[in-house]
């Protein structure tokens, strides 16, 4: 039987969009929640280490699969009744993982992306959870020992698999936008558009938590469109007009303003159509009482806009937590290549047929996408040579 909480399609159930606020090229759309329940709270935990190494399997210092990145902060999730108050702000920070000094740098070793700390408490690394899922796609590498693959690829899979992202503070416009943003009373989230392209969505359960976490958006990482489209001009400050002919009293005017608000919400929902309302593939991560923590990604087709993210859904289907990341075109292409390779059983000829191309061309594409290390040296060389001669 399928769990109803597992997302098949991302629907903003129980959420409402308010008109956007613009700063330079950045457009921020507030997400409001009308019925707030106090049983899922988020708090911020800051780490000030240069590098964080998360062990995904095995003990903290034992050899095994690791996720290495820069993590400025984590989220502490508490659920259930009445415990929330005790945790909010008053809790002494329990030591999380281990700190190691490496020369002038400090490295934090953490145990798992999602770590249970108490009966009703969870520590998670926001967005890294989703990114880890993305990196782990087909991480095992070829499952049939085709002769083209290098020995490393056959024994270690894709390791090391690397992707890069842009920290929020790389964009001064985002800094200004977050600074001047006016948080609504019942706001629980934010849609972030750069040059009117959806970059990220962030939703939590409680408005007070959102206020605390608002500035952390600057430390989070975003797709490289944040920088690339940052060079475009300012996003237009739109304004809707009222229809004079339909107004004959103050009540009409009030109704017209309400309609204007609804139009704004519809328009922003349309702008975010690449994320909300699309089909997603999700994976369950953790079950916490009535809540299900999961991560998901969209279709990964290069022709579409692609997001990956993580979500917490309540048993009645309410979206309680959401954080997404927009993949860049190159990242989507890499994921798509791997997906198609895996679908054709890692056989290069089969995959080339799927792509409607030749085997040599596929080899070059793999190399250009940064997967050259999967193939044997002479395979790459032959493909390069033939391609050059062909030209």
């Amino acid at each position, binding site marked *: 039987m399928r769990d109803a909480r597992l997302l098949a399609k991302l629907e903003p159930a129980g959420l409402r969009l308010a*008109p956007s606020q613009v700063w330079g090229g950045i457009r921020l759309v507030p997400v409001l929640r009308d019925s707030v329940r106090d049983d899922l709270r988020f708090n911020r935990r800051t780490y000030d280490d240069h590098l964080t190494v998360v062990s995904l399997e095995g003990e903290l210092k034992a050899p095994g699969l690791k996720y290495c990145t820069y993590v400025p902060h984590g989220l502490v999730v508490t659920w259930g009744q009445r415990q929330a108050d005790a945790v909010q702000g008053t809790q002494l920070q329990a030591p999380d993982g281990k700190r190691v000094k490496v020369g002038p740098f400090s490295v934090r070793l953490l145990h798992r992306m999602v770590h249970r700390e108490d009966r009703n408490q969870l520590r998670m690394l926001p967005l890294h959870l989703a990114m880890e899922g993305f990196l782990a796609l087909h991480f095992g590498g070829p499952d049939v020992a085709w002769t083209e693959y290098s020995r490393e690829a056959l024994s270690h899979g894709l390791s090391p698999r690397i992707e890069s992202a842009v920290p929020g503070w790389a964009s001064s416009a985002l800094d200004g936008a977050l600074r001047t943003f006016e*948080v609504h009373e019942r706001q629980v989230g934010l849609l972030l558009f750069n040059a009117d392209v959806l970059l990220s969505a962030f939703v939590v359960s409680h408005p007070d938590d959102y206020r605390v976490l608002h500035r952390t958006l600057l430390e989070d990482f975003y797709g490289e469109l944040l920088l690339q489209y940052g060079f475009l001009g300012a996003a237009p400050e739109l*304004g809707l007009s009222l229809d004079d002919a339909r107004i*004959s009293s103050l009540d009409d005017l009030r109704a017209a303003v309400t309609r204007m608000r609804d139009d704004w919400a519809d328009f922003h929902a349309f702008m975010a159509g690449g994320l909300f309302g699309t089909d997603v593939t999700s994976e369950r991560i953790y079950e916490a009482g009535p809540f299900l923590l999961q991560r998901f990604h969209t279709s990964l087709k290069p022709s579409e806009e692609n997001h990956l993210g993580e979500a917490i859904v309540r048993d009645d289907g309410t979206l309680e937590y959401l954080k997404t990341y927009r993949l860049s075109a190159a990242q989507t292409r890499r994921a798509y290549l791997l997906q198609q390779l895996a679908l054709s059983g890692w056989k290069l000829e089969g995959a080339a047929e799927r792509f409607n191309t030749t085997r040599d061309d596929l080899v070059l594409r793999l190399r250009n996408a940064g997967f050259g290390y999967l193939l044997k040296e002479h395979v790459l060389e032959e493909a390069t040579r033939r391609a050059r001669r062909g030209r």
Partner: protein
Amino acid sequence: MAAVMEVRSEQVAREDLVMFVNACFSCTGQREFYGDARGQSVSIEFLHQYILGNYRRLYARTLAAGINHFNQAQIVLNLLASGSPAAPEDREEEGALIAATLRALPPPRAFRVLESLRARRINNRRARAIVREYLEGRADLAFDAVKYRSKLRAAVVHGHVKLPGELGPFLIHGWKKRTYTQPLLEAFRQAHYTQDAVYALPYTVAEGLAAKHGIPRDVFLQRIEPRLTPAERLRLQESAARDGGKAPAVDLERAPLTKLALYILSLKQEERRTRRDALHTALERAAARVLGRAPVSLGRVAAVLDSSYSSSGSLEKRRRPLGVALAAHYLLSAASRDYRAFWTCPVEDVVQVQARGQTDITTPLLEALAWGAELVVIVSDGYDNDPPKAVAELTRVYRAKLDPARRTALVHVNPVFDAEEYAPRSFGTAVPTVGVRDAEDLPTVLGFARFAEGTAPLSELEGYLSARVRGLRERDARRRQRDAAVAAPVEPVVAEEGEG
């Protein structure tokens, strides 16, 4: 054709002037919530140069329009820098205006102007005469020589002014070289060697010398307390309570309205709650005092007050937009027969208002209109974002369809200057926008609103300005008479006016 051109040029002149006066009401060249300091100062400097170049006489007369101190100082400097006008009556009026403005400015600002004369290398006969006349009019030059030592010295050296008595040696020949009979000068000299003499000096001077002697901060604050000016008392409340254990007693009854509002907003929520009644009456009294000086009586007034997050201002103008809104609330409620306030984020008790939330002007504005106000005053920075630009549409339709006869007057009072538009940001064309810096200027600003609306012709604006010029000169004449009547020089009450 010529007539059309005439009309058009008059219209341009009127728009330029209204824009300039409006900018001079609000802009101080400091950082705002949405704009940085650089943009603000570039923008206002351009406006000054543009108006000075094109409408010199009106530029000088703007000094009397009730604009803020920053722009008064700028105008004085720019006028002095560009030589005197050719026509004798213009020359006479301009000179009188500059002198009167300098005398009316708070001393720190006036001395800053004198110092800037040197920095900008302005040294013509008129500038020197203005400096001389200003210094002659000062009640206690010895006090100025201690408190504004470097500025006074700059003015004296630059303007070749001869100072009477011991002041020349004190400022020019080095204060160390002799002892003085003037007690304050002697105290300044002694304070460099003994700790006790420090406490006879003004606070700003004593502070540095106390640090030099290594006097503990708490001891210093305790003993200097009688020398503190009211503005210094307000400013020191928090840090003195932290360092000295006790905040200096502040006379809430005497503080000016906007300063008081800003002080109250700087207090913590609990403190505002516990002292609520005292603060409330202090604000009411301050508003009554403002009205006592410039009586206004209004009918049924609704105020739409913006307490959104952007009214928290900037580091340089902390909570000023909110402070102006709070002060305007008390001022309007005292001035009108029937009054109601509509905040963007409704508050139970106005004293506890906070800068929080989005800017939704439409909801309170609709409520105000439904209440049936004769005059709706909107105090806001002009950025409405829930929904964006809805107020412009709403007021346009309201004027066009529901109130073409203008039974309800709408005025938008904006404490924030928008550098890119060279004007305070407006809510479309249906609402006249006027700038404001202190809520005390609200009566003046409301009087100016009819020009911002664009219906009054240029001649009326010129008439308005020359009437204000007459008023300023009369006030100045009275002030000089009063000063002359005081035979023995008393220690001046220094009203410190910092922007921020």
